[in-house]
């Protein structure tokens, strides 16, 4: 049994299990959206002093922070007790394209060491890239009113037009970064 669980999950297992998570949240009167936690964390950190946008009762969103804590624990359990060392099943063309950009062994680990390893973290460029990436994620998801969970999973399955626009935007941004900006950066 553990052997089956420890292998990479097929899309038809992983996808529906995300929907089970979503269903459970709605079943217990909550909603599914991770990026609103960024707002709550800012409020908890005292951002309300600087902008009315953050003047909210963070206790009402505490359940969502608990969800985040669960995600961290889940990540810990999955990587420590339920993982095999099978490389991520990337398209050979993708691995080849990434190696041309300077990313070796793409798929061998969860994240590329060229961006997340100690060597990258010891340079201003390395830290700057992660910080700018995060900045875009935070700013963009709040402006868009949701991220992959709130727009792509919930919004799309609820046939919301703004969610479709947002997801199209996600992928245009992703394509521009991957094909235009990343080759310039690396």
């Amino acid at each position, binding site marked *: 049994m553990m052997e089956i669980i420890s292998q990479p999950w097929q899309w038809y297992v992983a996808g529906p299990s995300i929907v089970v998570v979503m269903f459970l949240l709605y*079943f217990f009167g909550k909603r599914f959206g991770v990026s609103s936690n960024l707002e709550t964390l800012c409020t908890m950190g005292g951002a309300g002093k600087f902008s009315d946008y953050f003047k909210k009762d963070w206790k009402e969103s505490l359940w969502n922070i608990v969800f985040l804590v669960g995600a*961290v624990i889940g*990540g810990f*359990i999955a990587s420590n007790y339920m993982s095999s060392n099978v490389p991520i099943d990337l398209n050979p063309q993708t691995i080849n394209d990434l190696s041309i950009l300077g990313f070796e062994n793409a798929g061998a680990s969860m994240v590329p060491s060229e961006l997340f390893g100690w060597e990258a973290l010891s340079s201003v460029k390395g830290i700057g890239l992660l910080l*700018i990436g995060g900045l875009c994620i935070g700013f963009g998801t709040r402006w868009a009113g949701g991220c992959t969970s709130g727009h792509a999973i919930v919004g799309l399955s609820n046939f919301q037009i703004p969610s479709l*626009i947002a997801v199209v935007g996600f992928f245009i941004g992703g394509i521009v970064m991957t094909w235009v900006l990343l080759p310039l950066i690396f």
Partner: protein
Amino acid sequence: MKCSSFKPFTCTVFKKGIIKNFYGDKVVVAAKGKNWKSPLFGGLIFGLGWALAGACPGPMFVLIGNGIFSIGIVIIGALMGTFLYGKFKQYLPH
């Protein structure tokens, strides 16, 4: 939300109350409004960061559990980005 020609799961099962929630109430999946500028422009910016940092807000936190602590810098960046949005929201198109 109108339940007319297209019928998503949320219409047929939730809105008609076929499946009620734990407390016996109808399940409400909030509508996303009618704006198109904010999802488009915000989505574009998120997409850029998504591809650069290689994570969306959920997996950012899962990666901490995976022991990849440098993702913490991305999370700090995301909190800074959220703060900047909150600060300058009134000047942005929505």
